[in-house]
């Protein structure tokens, strides 16, 4: 296993520092005194250019999703024959009915499974990570640096290298094709631990913990009623990022889950894309409507909790 433990963290320690050697380069282009009126006109033109660029990027970002929404309202004939970027007829109800009733409502099983794996897995993973993050941030103990090296080093381990032996180990103890095969790996998430440590360091002052300890509070009580409350924002971020990761995960459920009753949404949709037309059912409509439905919970959650994941991204990148 390659261990270069410091690599993802060290390059970002000080984003604010600008190399001092760049400054003379700017001075060299000092303008003449008459430049200010000219530059304001130039500025207005460059503002328009900037705005056009942003609109262009926005269109690129949104049009595939727009197409998906439009496509899921069409019946088969409309999908194949009409302009993809505009509506023609309203068949969303019929498509939804088809998705939820096809193969005895297997799609609803997949939705429930995705919620179960992502919900329970991220909740367990967040609790484990917050405790570990607190332990790493606020205590000194033998082997601490080794634990932290494990955390950072594991970012470099390919998922396949873990998943294949895990599959063999799980099949020996009879866990393959059970929900545990997907849930257990969610409980141990090194990136969550890393985030939890960073958040605890910034949100929980050591003095508060010391004061509670002097007042006679037990360590567990301090953690549950003081520390967890103080890092609740960080905890929410860790939960959200883990939820999104599990909801979207594909390789692990693909290797671990056999029976289609236990599949996740991503596995089910993957299977449906493999069959185009079967006994009169056009899978393109099924897949597209199902794909749209699978986005909704995620989009809803991300919008409701945008405060948290934005800070999570910034934290993960800058610390």
């Amino acid at each position, binding site marked *: *296993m*390659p261990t*270069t433990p410091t690599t*993802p963290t060290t*390059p970002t320690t000080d*984003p*604010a520092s*600008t190399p001092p050697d760049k400054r003379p*380069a*700017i*001075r060299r*282009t*000092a303008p003449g005194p008459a*430049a200010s009126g000219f530059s304001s006109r130039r*500025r207005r033109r460059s*503002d328009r250019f900037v705005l056009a*660029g942003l609109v262009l990027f926005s269109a690129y*970002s*949104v049009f*595939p*999703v727009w*197409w998906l929404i439009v*496509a899921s309202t069409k019946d088969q004939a409309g999908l194949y024959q009409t*302009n993809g970027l505009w509506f023609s007829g309203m068949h969303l109800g019929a498509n939804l009915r088809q998705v939820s009733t096809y193969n005895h409502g297997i799609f609803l099983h997949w939705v429930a499974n995705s919620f179960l794996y992502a919900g329970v897995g991220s909740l367990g993973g967040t609790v484990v990570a917050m405790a*570990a993050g607190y*332990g790493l941030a606020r*205590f*000194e*103990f033998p082997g601490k640096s080794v*634990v932290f090296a*494990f955390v950072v080093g594991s*970012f470099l*381990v*390919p998922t*396949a*290298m*873990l998943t*294949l*032996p*895990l599959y063999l*180990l799980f099949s020996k103890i009879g866990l393959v094709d059970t929900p545990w095969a997907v849930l257990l790996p969610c409980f*141990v998430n090194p990136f969550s*631990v890393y985030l939890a440590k960073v958040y605890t360091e910034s949100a929980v002052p050591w003095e508060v913990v010391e004061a509670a300890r002097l007042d006679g509070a037990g*360590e567990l009580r301090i953690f549950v009623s003081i520390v967890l409350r103080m890092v609740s924002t960080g905890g929410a971020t860790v939960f959200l990022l883990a939820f999104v990761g599990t909801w*979207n995960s*594909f*390789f692990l459920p693909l290797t671990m889950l056999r029976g289609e009753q236990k599949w996740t949404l991503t596995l089910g*949709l*993957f299977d449906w*894309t*493999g069959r185009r037309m079967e006994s009169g059912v056009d899978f393109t409509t099924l897949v*597209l409507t199902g*794909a749209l439905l699978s*986005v909704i919970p995620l*989009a809803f959650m991300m919008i409701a909790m*945008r405060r948290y994941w934005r800070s999570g*991204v910034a934290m*993960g*990148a*800058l610390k």
Partner: protein
Amino acid sequence: MVRSLRWKGAAFTAPFLMGFVFLFLIPIGYALYQSLFLEQQSGLGLGGTSTEFVGLKNYGHGLTDSTFLGAVWRVFLFACVQIPVMLTFSLVMALLLDSVTARAAARFRPVLLVPYMIPGIVAAIVWINLYSPLVGPLTPLGKTLGFSWDFFAPAMVWPSIGNLLTWHGIGYTMLILYAALQAVPRELFDAARVDGASEVRLALSVKIPAVRPALVLTGMLSIIGMLQIFNEPMLLRHVTPQTVTAGFTPIMVIYNEAFNAGNYDYAAALSVILAAILGTASYLFYRFTSREAA
């Protein structure tokens, strides 16, 4: 007192550490151990199989396996094009967003982040259908413009995947770079403006050097992710199985060896080799970029 406190601190990390041993260290050890063995058909293939210790034979096989090496090379070449393109687009996006008023930025940012909210598999499904000559709008668009493009043709598969990955990753990368830009003190930009730097000059000489660490980080994350690319080609394989072969990417080779051919030992050796490549690539990238910065 102090001594007991130490062990209490360790106790908080114990659940994670136990899980880590069970779900990371043991599997990694098991993969290393297993890669030294080979399951062989005994005699005439009638008497079942036996597992034999073969030393580094699996590794020798892996390092000369043209399917595996071909997949690594294919993905490496692809990464050399896609990652710089995606980073450039994300950087331009972050710079544009940084140069408008805070109100305008707040209006554009959620729109630019829409792709990040889409699960990877769904993003692939949507783009495969957009590319599709049957239902996608891009084929009729090409016809009106006078092109007849086939996005699933052998020469077009990688550009098609590249566009899909760029679309999906650009928002998240932009967000990281934008956050780094926002962390730079504004006085620095004002000082450069007072000194007469144009906005383009400001971006090139002040803003980009300031976000360099974030660029290095996102570049490294992209390299790690790219070498493990699996989902998108697996889905494309449903559409063009003759172009996207079973051994198209390194992880696909490993998956195929393990689950279709049943060669778990060989698959274990290949995943160790891939981990070594991953570690080396990250290390070299880090060394290369940080030496230049120093």
